[in-house]
C-alpha cells in the first residue's frame, strides 16, 4: 500500500466488491465443491450421493489405467518442456545476434503465439492426414506407416510435435527479451575474456538467462499439463479410445462424459495439489534465485 493513501471508507469496498463476488462464486465455491464431492460417491441415476471417505482416491491410485495416464502425462510434459525450451533458446540466441532482417525473423517466429491450441491441433490433423498428409508421406519415405489416432506412439508423437510448435513462440519472446536486457558492458567484457563463442554462451549468457529459464520452466510445465487440452482433443477428434491422454483430459472424460463425479473431483483435487506444490517450489526457488542487475 502507498503511504499517502486515501482514507475514504466506502469507496475501496465498492471497488473491491465486483472482484470479490466473482471469485467467491466462480472460484471458491467450485473449488470447495470439488474437494467436498471427492469424498462422495454419486448415484449413477442422480438419486443423491453417499459419503465414502478416501475411497475415490484409493480407487484412483489402484487403477492401472489412471497410473498409465499419469505416467504418460509426465513423459509428455518432460518432452514438450524440453524441446520447446531448447528450440526457443537456440532461435532466440541467433535472432539476438543477426542484424539483417532481425525484425522479420522476430515476427515470423512469434505469430504462432496467437494460434489457439485446438486450431494448432487442427493443423496437425491436416499435416498427419492418413492418405495425403505431408508428414505422413515423409514417414512413408523412411518406411514407417504413420497412423494418427490408431497407433499409440504415433498419436503421442503428433501431440508432442504440435504442442511444441505452439509453445516455441512464447519461450522465444521471453528468451529474446532476456538476452536483450543483458547490459552491453557485460557482453563486451565477456568478448575480451573469452574468445570462443560457445564458451561465452555457456559461461556468461546462459547463467544470466537462468532466472528467465526457470520462470519459463514453470510456465511450460503448466502449459503442458493444462493448456494442451485443445491440442489433444482435436488430434483424437474427441474420441479418446485407446489414445494417449493427459490427466486434465481424463478429468474431463470421466466427469463430463462418464458422469463419475466423485472420481473426477478426486482427480481435480489431485491436480490442485500438484499445482500448489509446483507454486510453492517456484516461490522457494525465486527467493533463492540470484539477481545480477
Amino acid at each position, binding site marked *: 500500500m*502507498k503511504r499517502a493513501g486515501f482514507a475514504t471508507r466506502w469507496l475501496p469496498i465498492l471497488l473491491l466488491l465486483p472482484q470479490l463476488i466473482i471469485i467467491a462464486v466462480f472460484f471458491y*465455491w467450485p473449488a470447495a465443491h470439488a474437494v467436498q464431492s471427492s469424498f462422495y460417491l454419486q448415484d449413477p441415476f442422480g438419486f443423491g450421493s453417499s459419503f465414502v471417505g478416501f475411497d475415490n482416491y484409493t480407487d484412483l491410485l489402484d487403477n492401472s489405467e489412471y497410473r498409465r495416464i499419469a505416467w504418460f502425462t509426465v513423459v509428455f510434459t518432460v518432452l514438450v518442456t524440453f524441446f520447446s525450451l531448447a528450440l526457443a533458446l537456440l532461435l532466440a540466441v541467433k535472432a539476438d545476434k543477426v542484424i539483417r532482417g532481425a525484425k522479420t525473423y522476430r515476427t515470423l517466429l512469434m505469430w504462432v503465439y496467437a494460434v489457439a491450441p485446438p486450431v494448432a491441433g487442427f493443423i496437425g490433423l491436416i499435416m498427419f492426414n492418413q492418405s495425403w498428409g*505431408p508428414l505422413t508421406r515423409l514417414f512413408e519415405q523412411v518406411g514407417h506407416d504413420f497412423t494418427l489416432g490408431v497407433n499409440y506412439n504415433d498419436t503421442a508423437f503428433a501431440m508432442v510435435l504440435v504442442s511444441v510448435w505452439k509453445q516455441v513462440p512464447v519461450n522465444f519472446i521471453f528468451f529474446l527479451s532476456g538476452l536483450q536486457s543483458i547490459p552491453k558492458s557485460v557482453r563486451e567484457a565477456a568478448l575480451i575474456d573469452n574468445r570462443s563463442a560457445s564458451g561465452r554462451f555457456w559461461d556468461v549468457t546462459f547463467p544470466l538467462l537462468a532466472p528467465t529459464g526457470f520462470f519459463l520452466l514453470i510456465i511450460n510445465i503448466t502449459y503442458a499439463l493444462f493448456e494442451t487440452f485443445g491440442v489433444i482433443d482435436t488430434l483424437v477428434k474427441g474420441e479418446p479410445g485407446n489414445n494417449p491422454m493427459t490427466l486434465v483430459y481424463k478429468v474431463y472424460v470421466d466427469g463430463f462424459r462418464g458422469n463419475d463425479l466423485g472420481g473426477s473431483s478426486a482427480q481435480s483435487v489431485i491436480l490442485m495439489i500438484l499445482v500448489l506444490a509446483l507454486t510453492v517450489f517456484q516461490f522457494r526457488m525465486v527467493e533463492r534465485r540470484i539477481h545480477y542487475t
Partner: protein
Amino acid sequence: MSDANTAAMAAATLTQPAKRRRIKAATLFDHAVLILGALFMIVPLVMVFQMTTVPDVEIIKTGPSFVIGDQLDENFRKAMFEASGFSGENSGTNMLVNSFILGIGFAVGKIVIGMMAAYAIVYFRLRFATLAFWMIFTTLLLPLEVRILPSYEVVQRLGMLNTYQGLIIPLIASATATFFFRQYFRSVPEELVEAARIDGAGPVKFFVDILVPLSKTMIAAMFIIMFVYGWNQYLWPTMITTEEDMFTLVRGIKQITQVMEGNRIPEYGRANLLAIIAIIPPVFVVIFFQSWFVKGLTESDK
C-alpha cells in the same frame, strides 16, 4: 606475460583474413538456423491456406501442393454464410461475432475489474486489505482446468448455460490483471497522490483523471494479451455452450473437423478457411501491436 600477449596479437593479425571468412560463415549459419525455424512455424499455415484455393476433389488426389487455384471465393462464401451442424445457426459469420464478443468482453471485463480492485488495494487504507489481497491472489494458483466440473455445476445452477455471461464471467475469476495493475500502480511515484490531494482531488478524480491516463500503455498491453487469451478459449466454451448459435470459432473447431470428415467428399477448403479465419484476428493484433504486446507479456511476470 606481455610477450605471450604480443605473440597472440601477432598471430591474430596474421590469421585475420581467415577469421573474417569464418565470421561470415558463422553469420550464414545463424541465418540458416533462423530461416529453418521460421519455415517450421509458417509452412504448415501456408499449406492449410493453399488447400482453401483448390477444389476439394483435387486435395483427395494430391494433398497440399504448389498450385494456387480459384476456389478461395467459393470456399469463403461457404465458410462464412453456409451453416453446418444441425440447427443451421453456426455459420462462420455467427461464430466470428461470438468470438469477438468473448475476446473483447473478456478483455474489457478483466481490465475494468482488475484495475478497480488493484486501485483499492494499493491506494486505500483498509482494515481487511491483507485478507482481500490473499483471497484475490490465491486464484492465481489454480487454473480453471482443474476445477472445470464444479465450475460448470455452479454456472448450471445459476442458469447461465448458453449465455454470454456464463461464458465470460467465470473466466474473469482469476487475478492476473489485478496482479499486473497492482505491480504497475506500486511503481507510480508517491508524489502524484500527494500533489493531487493538495490540489483537492478526491479518490475518484485522481483515478479517472490521473491514474487511468497514466496507465494507457499498460492497459493496451493487457488488452492485447487478454483478447488473445479470451479468443482462444476452448475447454470452457466447450462445456458451457451446447447450442450451436453460441459457438465461437475456436469452440466450433470440432464441428469444423466434422465438416471435413462427414461428407462423401470432405470439405477441406471450407474447414481450412474457417480455421484460418479463427487465426487471423489474434495474430493480426499480436503482429501489429508487437512492441506493446511483448512489453506487456515480459513485464507481467515481475
